[in-house]
């Protein structure tokens, strides 16, 4: 079907993932205020992309597979975004007029 990646590629990806796990853990100890979560999620996202693209071999897959893999995250963002539409603006109250 598709071209088959070498063992070396797989091991390299594994090594990167393991190192990134250490990195997440280490930076979590540094106090960066609100940025801790951003960094943690950024690294997690990057790790996820490595797994998806290489281990799951989406890199070599058809655009259709890529579309479906992407759709999940798009809908997840719809879910989260619209939750926050409510929660982030709960305290706001208009005084009288709306505009």
């Amino acid at each position: 079907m598709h071209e088959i990646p070498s063992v070396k590629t797989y091991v390299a990806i594994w090594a990167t993932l393991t190192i990134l796990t250490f990195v997440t853990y280490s930076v979590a100890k540094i106090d960066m205020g609100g940025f801790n979560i951003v960094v943690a999620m950024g690294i997690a996202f990057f790790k996820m992309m490595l797994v998806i693209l290489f281990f799951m071999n989406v890199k070599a897959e058809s655009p259709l597979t890529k579309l479906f893999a992407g759709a999940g995250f798009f809908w997840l963002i719809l879910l989260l975004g619209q939750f926050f539409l409510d929660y982030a603006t709960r305290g706001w109250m208009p005084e009288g007029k709306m505009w």
Partner: protein
Amino acid sequence: MPLFPESASTIANSIDYLYFYLIAVSTIMTVLIFSAVFIFAIKYRRRSPDEIPAPIHGSLKLEIFWSVVPFIIMLSFFWWGAQIFFESASPPPGAMDIYVVGKQWMWKIQYPEGQREINELHVPVGKPVRLTLASEDVIHSFFIPAFRVKHDVVPGRYDTMWFTATKPGRYHLFCAEYCGTEHSGMVGWVTVMSEPDYENWLTGGGSEGTMVQQGERLFQQLGCSTCHLLDQQGRCPIMRGVYGSHVQLQDGKTVLADDAYIRESILNPNAKIVAGFKPDVMPTFQGQISEEGLLQLIVYIKSLAITSAPGTTAPGAAGAATTGGGPRPPAKRTQPTGGKK
């Protein structure tokens, strides 16, 4: 047989007009579509079994026309509806307060002057009334059809709604959110009275004193007064002047002392520790105090707010003052137990 509900509040008419507008547009659209279907069905009925009509594949112009025009019409629904919704979101300044607690399956209503009723609400005509809504158990919904107002009553938080009645009379009061066995029995009456009648009615009841006095009594009974002294530092923060102020917390943050904050501090005292005090000094009162009691305590603490002229007014008078130009709780929709800033 009534076909249209009575309109007895300032907002009722504006909602009715919008409703008529919606009905008019919908009727036009329905008639249009129905007659097109009818006319086509009759005019183009099959006249011979081997009749083959010419195909028509579509028209971009028409498609755009019938997507854009309906949407513009719908935007007028949106605009008008949102306008009324926002205008009716906040009560006008000076609205009088009434406190409502929903409980399976009754409405418990208390007035700052001390009256308490079940499933009956008395309001004067022509005066804005703000209801503070609390639930002891599940979600209820406070619904007065004649006023076209409704708001859910969600446990764990305070909600508010308001209206100004325009016509004396007796109107239905319903619970509109399904709440269990006697949901359909959680109904009552709203009595709108002329102002003098209302004053009369107010002085009739209230044998237990005003809400402030009831709150003060609870403050003693529950032992709050042993630590929270009014004017002098004890083991716990002073109560006078707390309400409406910005409280400095131990972790460096400040919070606004509103209804929700006071409610949380009673039920979950450790949640926010005031700077200079220790956690675990105060026991939790969760399960030991009813939602009504909580509201009384809040009204009492509110009456101690600095702006209501400390020392000069007796606690009883302060309660009445809050219904007038006194301090209003600044935030109305915050989560009582929430740690949000």
